[in-house]
């Protein structure tokens, strides 16, 4: 498939405005500025683009809600708080193709009649900040940002807002709290950010990759766009593949490609020809799949049928040398660390589960620990403001469902099932 999101990134100058324009950049913005904002929203709706941050919410619908709100100003925020473990798909756009994001944001701002945008960049990407700030400066100098974009009269101002190491700020209401200068703790929904977002105003929060798809939709039109990949959630998708594969990396492939094709045809297969043991298909919050799950198409429709989710499209591959109890414990200590502390079930539950998993892993597991983990999980799901707690609980339930034998082995034999000699 021809690359769009990662087009030209092998070129060492790909981040410069000159180079971006040389390969056709900013043509979509010029085209979009000739269109009525409502026409662009209709196009994005017709294209069927679904949010790439993890939830898969239809982007056109989100924009429609925000544009129907009568309050101004409206804010456009790019969620570049890429913190989901296993996920590094937005990094190449941020570091190597920043003008694609800026062009996508300028088009989106025109569609939403927003004159102020922020890129909420995670604190752990200091280099991306340097690249983005330079690119924004270049775009201002060329008139693609500013009071009068490309001489067409609509204005849009953009700056980078750097986070400071809090996974929870990837959740849109926590992100908004953080932009406003508060602790990043989620708000209750409704009201949704499209009506009451940053500083109480209508706010659209879109993922980097979502915004980077906008210039393509404008360039080729909704019909051609919706023919890419799965018609139910079309478009190109970035998959970040890591752990036990021969060639880990970010791959731009059509939505709906199977997990098997990603792992074996693109990422070089399991390292050293070893046996595949498990795959997490969408970042650490996505429930783990057993090896027979690899025939599943990677999209927002099919993965939920297998009890997992597409999430951020971060494929984590585990071979037979990896202990599932240990992975589950490490994931849980991450959730415990990142729980914002607002909701008791998540704040306390993640810590309890980390403790129990640690003792199972260390050979001190108790007979009813699996049931205890399930009980705690079910006491978190649906009882928190945001999906972090649900994610943590889902991870444990996924591991127990697919690898209960390994958990039981650990508890009964007080040691790991994975031989140290592998």
């Amino acid at each position, binding site marked *: 498939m021809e690359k769009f999101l990662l087009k030209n990134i092998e070129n060492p100058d790909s981040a410069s405005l000159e180079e971006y324009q040389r390969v056709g950049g900013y043509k979509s913005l010029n085209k979009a500025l000739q269109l009525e904002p409502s026409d662009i929203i209709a196009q994005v709706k017709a294209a069927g683009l679904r949010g790439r941050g993890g939830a898969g919410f239809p982007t056109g619908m989100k924009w429609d809600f925000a544009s129907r709100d009568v309050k101004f100003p409206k804010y456009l925020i790019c969620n570049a708080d890429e913190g989901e473990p*296993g996920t590094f798909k937005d990094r190449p756009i941020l570091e190597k193709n920043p003008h694609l994001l800026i062009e996508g944001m300028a088009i989106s701002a025109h569609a939403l009649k927003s004159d102020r945008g922020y890129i909420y960049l995670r604190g752990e990407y200091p280099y991306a900040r340097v690249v983005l700030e330079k690119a924004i400066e270049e775009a201002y100098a060329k008139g693609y940002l500013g009071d009068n974009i490309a001489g067409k009269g609509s204005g849009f101002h953009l700056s980078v*807002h750097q*986070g400071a190491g809090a*996974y929870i700020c990837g959740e849109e209401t926590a992100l908004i709290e953080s932009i406003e*200068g508060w*602790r990043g703790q989620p708000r209750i929904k409704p009201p949704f950010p499209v009506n009451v977002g940053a500083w109480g105003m209508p706010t659209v929060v879109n993922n980097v990759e979502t915004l980077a798809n906008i210039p393509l939709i404008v360039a080729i039109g909704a019909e051609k766009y919706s023919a890419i990949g799965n018609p139910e959630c079309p478009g190109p998708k970035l998959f970040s593949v890591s752990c036990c594969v021969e060639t880990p990396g970010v791959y731009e492939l059509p939505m709906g490609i199977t997990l098997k094709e990603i792992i074996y045809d693109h990422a070089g297969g399991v390292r050293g020809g070893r046996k595949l043991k498990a795959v997490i298909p969408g970042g650490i919050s996505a429930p783990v799949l057993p090896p027979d799950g690899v025939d599943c198409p990677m999209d927002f429709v099919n993965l939920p049928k297998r009890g997992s989710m597409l999430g951020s499209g971060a494929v984590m591959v585990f071979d037979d040398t990896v202990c599932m109890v240990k992975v589950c414990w490490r994931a849980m200590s991450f959730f415990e660390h990142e729980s914002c502390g607002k909701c008791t079930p998540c704040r306390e539950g993640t810590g309890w589960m980390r403790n129990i998993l640690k003792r199972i892993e260390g050979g001190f597991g108790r007979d009813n620990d699996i049931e205890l983990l399930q009980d705690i999980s079910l006491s978190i799901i649906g009882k928190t403001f945001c999906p972090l707690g649900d994610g943590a609980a889902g991870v444990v339930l996924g591991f127990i469902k697919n690898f209960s034998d390994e958990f039981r082995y650990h508890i009964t034999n007080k040691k790991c099932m994975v031989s140290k000699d592998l």
Partner: protein
Amino acid sequence: MDIFEEIRALSEKYPDRRGALLHALYVAQKDAGWLSQEALNTVSNALNLPQATVKGVATFYSMYKHRPMGRHLIQLCTNVACMIMGAESLVDFLKGKYGVEPGGTTGDGRFSLVIMECIGACDRAPAMLVDTDFHSDLTEDNIVEIIEEYK
């Protein structure tokens, strides 16, 4: 421009000056590598925000530090991908080689070691940040070479 003025200028980017708080805390932390009470007071005065709320925000985010740190800050990722690719043994190795525990500082004050949650470089694991420089594909051999560059 002194820190006070620099922070004042940041607030121009936001409809409400409070929006500049995260950035302001970075500015206040830049020179010393941590946020002393004095640094927090400067932020509080520059943005005209209560000291308690400034501290409340500063203690929420893990990249703000609240006690003196070494001259350099090593943030090593040990999340799942880095763990599988050997980050845990690197932590033990650093402990043995430099006598530094996660969360601690070397005796000579040269660097502090912090464990960070996913650095977003799982394809080049294990990875770390030294100050703002990114380093990946770490091994016991190259991690020493890298660290020796930071005096």
